C-alpha cells in the first residue's frame, strides 16, 4: 500500500493525474475558506476569505528569493572548501 502511494507521487506516468488532484485540492481549500464560520476576527486579514492562501504563496516566494538574494548577492553562500 505504502509503495503504491509513494509510486503515485514519484512515477512520471502519474504526473498528469497528480497535477489535476493538486489543483483540485487548492480550489477546494479556497472554497472551504469562504464557507467556514468565523466567529470573531481579531485582525483585518482574518476576515478576508482566501487570505491565508495568498499569504502562504507570498511567503513562499518571498522566502525563496530573499534567501537566494542573501546567499548569492550578499555572499552568504561560499564554495565548500571556504574554511579549508
Amino acid at each position, binding site marked *: 500500500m505504502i509503495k503504491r502511494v*509513494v509510486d503515485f507521487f514519484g512515477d512520471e506516468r502519474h504526473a498528469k493525474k497528480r497535477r489535476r488532484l493538486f489543483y483540485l485540492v487548492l480550489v477546494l481549500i479556497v472554497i472551504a475558506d469562504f464557507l467556514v464560520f468565523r466567529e470573531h476576527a481579531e485582525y483585518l486579514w482574518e476576515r478576508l476569505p482566501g487570505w491565508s492562501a495568498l499569504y502562504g504563496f507570498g511567503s513562499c516566494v518571498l522566502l525563496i528569493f530573499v534567501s537566494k538574494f542573501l546567499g548569492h548577492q550578499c555572499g552568504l553562500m561560499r564554495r565548500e572548501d571556504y574554511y579549508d
Partner: protein
Amino acid sequence: MTDFVHPGLLFILGALPIPILKGSVRKAYVLLIPALAILAVLTMHPGGYGAAQFIGQQIMIAKVDKLSVLFATVFSIMALIGTVYALHLTHAAQHVAAFVYVGSALGVVFAGDYLTLFLFWEGMTFASAYLVFAQRSEQALRAGFRYLMVHITGSVALLGGIILHGFATGSVLFGPIEDGLGFATCLILAGFLLNAAVPPLNAWLTDAYPEATVTGAVFMSAFTTKTAVYVLARAFPGTDLLVWLGTVMALYGVVYAVLENDCRRLLAYHIVSQVGYMVVGIGIGTEMAVNGAVSHAFAHILYKALLFMGAGAVIHVTGRRKLTELGGLYKTMPVTLALYMVGALAISAFPFFSGFVTKSMVVAAAGQDHRALVVLALTMASSGTFLHTGLKLPYYMFFGTDQGLQAREPPRNMLVAMGMAAVLCIAIGVFPQTLYALLPHPVDFDPYTGVHITESLGVLMFTALGFVIFLRALDPENTISIDTDWFYRMGARRFMWLAEKPLARYEKAVSDVSETAALPFLHGMARAGLRIDLRGVDAFVNAVARAILRGGGALRRLQSGVVTHYALAMIAGVIAAIAVFAVAWR
C-alpha cells in the same frame, strides 16, 4: 517502594555496565533502562527530593512538578526511541555517551537549584560532544572541538551568573527570576540562550549536529535545545526580549534552510526555526503561550527526531549527505520515505499531526496578546518549514533526478524506531487532549475549528504551489553558508596568523639580537669571571689553606707528649685565669 527514583541517575548509573555486556543481553539491557525511566516518570509524585546543604547553600537534587514531569516524559520516551534506532551499533561507547547525555538532560529538568543544574548541564555538553567525535572523520573532530569550546564558553558565563546571582539573593534555588535583567541575570540568560541556539549564538548547532554519527544526531536533535527551552520556561517566562529573539529565530532558520545542501544541516536550521516558536511562547509568558511553548517542545522532540532518523537512514544506506548527490530513492526506500513524511507533515502543522495542535497554540497566544507582527512572522516561518522539510528535502532526496544509487531499506530496528515516533506524531495530532492534560496550566484551546483548518491548509498548500512553480530556483547548490561561526572560525585563523607571522617574526628578531649581541657579551663575562675565579679567588683560598697548614705544623711541635709539660701549661693557665678574674672582679 520509594516515592521517587531519579530517572536521570537511572540512565547515568545504568550506563556503567553497558561495555561489559555483549550481544542480545546488551540489547535487552539498553532497552530496559529507558523503559524503567518511563515507568519512574509516570509513577512519581510532585514535591522536592534530595534536599541538602552544600558549601553553606541549600540545594535540592530534584523538584517534581507538572513542567518537569512533562519534559521528563518526552525525554524518556525519546531515549527509548533513540536507543531502538541505535540498537544495531556494535560498539558500546555511543550507547554509554547517549545514556549519560539523556541522564544529564533529565538531571537538569529536575534540578531544584543552580548548582545541581550546572553539574548536569556540563554533563550534557561532554556526553553529547562524544556523539560528534564518534564519527571519527577529520571534519567531525574539528566540529566536535568547536562545539565543546563554544559550550564551555557558555557554561562559564552561566556559572559566573549563578555565582553573582547567589551572592545577590543569598540563595541558589532555581526558579523564576523576578529582579529584572541585571548583570548576573544577563549572564545566566546568555548561557541558556546559547544552548537554545538563539541567533547569533546558534552556529554551534548547525555546525556540529550534521557531523555527528547517524544515531548520535537523533539524540542531539532532541535534548540540548529543549533542555534550554525548559530552563527558559522555568526562569524567564514573560521576558519581552525573548519574543523578538524568538521571532527572528523562527525566520532565521528558514532563510538559511533555503541555502542549505547538506540534508541534516537543513534539518538543523529547522531546529533553530522551531525553537523560535517556543522562545516566543515563553517570552509572551501568558498561561496559553507557555502551554503552547512547552507542548510544542514535546511534539517537536518526536517529529524532529523522526526527521533526523529518516535523513540518517538515507545516509546510513547510501553514505551520501548532500542533496546534490541524492535523488530517486523512492523506489528503493518507500517505507523510509513514508515515515519521514509523517514527521514532515507534523513539523509543518498539517491537521491531524502533532505540530497542528501545539504550534497553533503559540501563534494563537501571540494573537491574543495583540502582537500582529509576531503572528505574521510565525505564519511565514510555517510556510517556510513546509517548503523545506516537507517539499524541498524529500523532493531532492527521494524524487528529483535519479542518481542510480544502490539503496535498500535501512535495518529493521531503524524502521521500528521511526514507526514509534510516527505513531506518536499522529496520536498527538488526533488526540491532543492527552497531551494538553500534561501541560503546566489548564488548557482552554481547541485547535480543530473550521477556520483554523482551512487557514492552515491554505497557507501550506499554496506554499506547495509556490514550490511547484519556482522549483528550479530551489535546486540545491554545492555550497556552504556563512553563519555566525565565521567569527570564531576565521577569528581563530586570524589569531593563528598573528601568532605565526608577526609574533613569530618578533620572537625571531629578539632571539637574533640575543644571539649576535647579548650572547657574546655573556660569554665574555663568563670568561672574565672564570679568570677572576682562578687567579684571584682560588689564589687567596690556596694561600689561606697553606697558612693554616703551616700554623698547624707549628702547633704540632708544642705537643711534646711529656705529662709534666702539659701540667705546667695547665697551672700557668689557671694562674692566668685567676689573674684575669681578679682584675675583672675589681
